[in-house]
């Protein structure tokens, strides 16, 4: 038995596959989202007027027709903002409303407040913007030509990769493009602002970052933070899209509430949501690699050109995370990872599950594929050869990978489970016989760094009260977007007190209860908030134990909390009774817990340190069939093995893995963002932008957890699971490339992401010289 096995065995809720806390309400349709909350009497509705052009000087904004439209109560522009016209997370470059410069197509020009949503939306279409058009910069190449960036260039690495590549027995280089991704949370952006006394405002917002909503609303209204409260009970999905990009809509609703003195609600319609909010960053990656006859990499030089859009938003952290994952799972002796954060006249790209990491990893997997193909080797063998190992375990940013053995164990086990070798041989035979259909297989690893790379964000707070009847109020700074965070934290708290889950009341996240929180992001929700809640619960339990000990005349260590009771040996009382006695004895039963992640320290200027507390590992093996006449692709089978440490809740973790994989599958195969030369997003509705549906999921989908206690002291030795599984879908992209490679063995496969049917067909034509069959 490992030391914490006995402790784990005593837990009643933690490590159990319990359903989501809101599951019963969800299946009845009775769990309210922001738009479902009863609207206070007199609630008005807000709609946003959009810029008709991507880049222009605004000469005049004619809003007469808007004001005259039926139902309109107020029209708001930049001139009506009492505080600062800035909804950015930090850089000050995201105006709430355009003042003089239009920075992207569909940017917010003004807002209409009306008696109904319909009236507001109709009126918003009546604004007339007189503009002087400028030529928009839309692509990576446009931005490079203009030398336009939103943030300084940045690079790290070691050794002299240029010289090492020159010296290596083999050299390859190429350019790879990776598309962005729309979040398509099913519940769109929405906020309800209710004015209070002395100019204060209460905002119900669908946001992953209530603290930022609070701060931005205060900034826009010119109020101290303490006058603004932001509350969120649940979101209908978020995926990073409601981290920095929920603030603008909340701030507009709050401004409307200020201007009218009435509650105001803003719910973006889907087209507006898709056109006006940022997406996953798309990239061009220029790479060069040097390697030996076996495929062992000697040096890598990669340049990541990120299309950030018109402003910085979170691009510093996003592109840094791309760079941190540009090694994927492989040791790179000499390496340079460089990046440019390019400015284009398009919506500002933002956080999206994986936060830049997926693009870095995918680019590296492509390099590995290219190396393997050039040597006539199985890419899995080249992956294994370069996998982090003893003595070859330092990342390009100077952090030692201490538990690469976990990653390798997963790789080994999945290779077995998936029967990779036999299937590879069978596929080779099939491809030799089949002319039109070609199959491909790939097994790729995941290694994802857990922690915010901005060190100060690695903290969390929780507020726990025990009431006199023994019921428990639980609040923490994390937000529930469907990922099951509240359920996990409630399990942790229930087990600290040794009580049943039904005693723990989960309450809405509120800046009035836990202040100065970090966003629920970077997969850190249960790591951080679970710890903070446990710290709070433990402090209360210790005080309760001391009270019980003094009543029984024993040492506090002799007191045990289990089965909703408090024991000294066989003697005991109910948890509720002790709570009541504590109140009578004037023992405080409320505690604010705070947790800060240990060990993390990243020096960005030096490009070295330990940005991550630990890594989460995984691996996936995907098999596909492509039709070389049509470009159609079918995903035949997927095997996944994913590292969750000692899972807090295996059912929820499996859900994160299945969901993350399928979201990654969409990113790499069907979800394509198309901007025209005028900078307008053409795929701004679900009719033209296709996320996966049930029939896209592989018929044979085998998901298993790898449960090995986290070597770091995380909450009950679990590991974060929100983002890492998305990158399991890299195996699908590599399997498609593998199928294409069978058309012209030894040649590089000209395929960019996403591998849509059109892209696959084009790659077929390029590889076969367009001759077809």
């Amino acid at each position: 038995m490992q030391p914490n096995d006995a402790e784990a065995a005593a837990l009643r809720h933690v490590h159990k596959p319990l359903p989501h806390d809101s599951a019963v309400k969800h299946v009845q349709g009775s769990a309210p989202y922001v738009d479902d909350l009863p609207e206070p009497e007199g609630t008005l509705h807000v709609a946003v007027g959009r810029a008709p052009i991507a880049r222009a000087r605004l000469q005049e904004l004619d809003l007469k027709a808007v004001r005259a439209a039926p139902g309109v109560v107020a029209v708001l522009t930049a001139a009506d903002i009492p505080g600062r016209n800035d909804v950015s997370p930090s850089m000050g470059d995201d105006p709430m409303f355009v003042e003089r410069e239009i920075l992207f197509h569909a940017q917010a020009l003004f807002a209409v407040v009306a008696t109904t949503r319909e009236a507001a939306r109709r009126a918003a279409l009546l604004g007339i913007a007189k503009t002087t058009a400028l030529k928009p910069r839309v692509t990576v190449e446009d931005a490079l030509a203009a030398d336009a960036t939103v943030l300084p260039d940045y690079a790290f690495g070691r050794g002299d990769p240029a010289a090492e590549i020159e010296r290596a027995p083999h050299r390859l280089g190429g350019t790879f493009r990776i598309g962005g991704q729309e979040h398509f949370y099913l519940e769109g952006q929405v906020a309800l602002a209710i004015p209070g006394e002395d100019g204060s405002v209460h905002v119900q917002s669908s946001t992953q970052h209530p603290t930022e909503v609070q701060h931005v609303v205060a900034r826009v209204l010119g109020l101290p933070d303490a006058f603004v409260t932001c509350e969120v009970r649940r979101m209908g999905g978020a995926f990073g899209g409601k981290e920095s990009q929920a603030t603008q809509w909340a701030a507009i609703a709050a401004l409307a509430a200020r201007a009218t003195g009435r509650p105001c609600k803003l719910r973006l319609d889907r087209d507006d949501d898709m056109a006006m909010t940022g997406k996953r960053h798309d990239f061009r990656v220029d790479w060069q690699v040097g390697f030996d006859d076996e495929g062992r990499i000697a040096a890598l030089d990669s340049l990541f050109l990120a299309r950030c859009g018109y402003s910085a938003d979170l691009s510093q952290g996003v592109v840094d995370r791309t760079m941190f994952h540009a090694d994927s799972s492989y040791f790179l002796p000499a390496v340079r990872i460089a990046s440019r954060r390019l400015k284009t006249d398009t919506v500002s790209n933002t956080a999206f599950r994986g936060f830049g990491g997926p693009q870095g990893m995918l680019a590296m997997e492509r390099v590995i594929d290219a190396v393997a193909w050039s040597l006539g080797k199985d890419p899995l063998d080249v992956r294994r050869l370069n996998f982090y190992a003893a003595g070859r375990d330092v990342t390009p940013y100077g952090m030692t990978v201490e538990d690469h053995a976990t990653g390798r164990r997963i790789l080994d086990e999945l290779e077995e489970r998936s029967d990779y070798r036999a299937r590879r041989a069978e596929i080779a035979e099939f491809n030799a016989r089949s002319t039109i259909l070609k199959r491909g297989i790939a097994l790729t690893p995941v290694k994802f760094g857990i922690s915010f790379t901005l060190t100060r964000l690695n903290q969390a707070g929780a507020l726990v009260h025990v009431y006199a009847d023994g019921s428990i109020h639980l609040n923490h700074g994390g937000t529930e977007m469907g990922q099951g965070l509240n359920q996990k934290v409630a399990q942790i708290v229930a087990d600290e007190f040794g009580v049943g889950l039904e005693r723990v009341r989960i309450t809405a996240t509120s800046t009035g209860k836990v202040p100065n929180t970090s966003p629920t992001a970077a997969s850190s929700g249960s790591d951080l908030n679970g710890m903070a809640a446990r710290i709070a619960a433990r402090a209360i339990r210790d005080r309760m134990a001391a009270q019980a000990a003094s009543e029984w005349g024993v040492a506090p260590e002799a007191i045990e909390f289990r089965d909703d009771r408090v024991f000294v040996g066989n003697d005991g009382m109910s948890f509720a009774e002790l709570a009541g006695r504590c109140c009578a004895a004037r023992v405080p039963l409320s505690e604010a817990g705070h947790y800060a992640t240990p060990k993390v320290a990243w020096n960005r200027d030096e490009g070295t340190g330990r940005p991550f507390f630990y890594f989460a590992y995984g691996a996936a093996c995907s098999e596909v069939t492509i039709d070389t006449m049509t470009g159609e692709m079918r995903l035949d089978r997927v095997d996944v093995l994913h590292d969750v440490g000692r899972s807090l809740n295996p059912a929820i973790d499996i859900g994160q893995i299945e969901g993350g994989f399928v979201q990654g599958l969409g990113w790499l195969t069907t979800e394509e963002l198309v901007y025209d030369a005028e900078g307008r997003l053409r795929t701004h509705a679900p009719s033209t932008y296709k996320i996966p549906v049930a029939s896209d999921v592989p018929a044979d989908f085998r998901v298993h957890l790898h449960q090995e206690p986290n070597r770091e002291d995380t909450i009950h030795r679990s590991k974060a699971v929100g983002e890492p599984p998305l990158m399991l879908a890299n195996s699908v992209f590599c399997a498609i490339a593998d199928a294409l490679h069978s058309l012209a063995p030894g040649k590089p496969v000209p395929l960019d992401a996403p591998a849509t049917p059109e892209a696959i067909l084009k790659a077929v034509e390029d590889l076969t010289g367009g001759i077809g069959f």
Partner: protein
Amino acid sequence: MTATVSITLTVNGETVRAEVPPRMHLADFLRERLALTGTHIGCEHGVCGACTVRLDGEIVRGCLVLAVQANGMSVETVEGASDSGELQDLQDAFRERNALQCGYCTPGMLLTAQELLAKGGVPDRETIREHMSGNYCRCTGYQAIVDAVETTARNRAAARG
């Protein structure tokens, strides 16, 4: 503003009379007038299925049907189907298999699945996947949803003997 239209319809078994703007769609009507907010608005484009309700027993997209079109008809929402108990086993299966995360798609998924299950028999997974493909879920990856529907079909078939 445009004149309103009087309609009379049955919603979850109760007769409802209302004056509605001619352009108001059924999902908005149910949500805003009757506070039946289990019918969710995902896209307002008829694509995502979050607004799925039954109209005279057939499932429709609440965002594509005007409230006035439902005049004289019978509407059932997730609340009604839930209260009647007809979804109980399916709801249990969704909860047990964790076939929901954010839950936003869930009411639409349940009504769509129930339509397939009502045909009887045990559909194969391929059929379930195809049938559920008009409903978006951005969270679960569908695997758990298909599992839950399959389990329910099996159990119902077994109960019928």
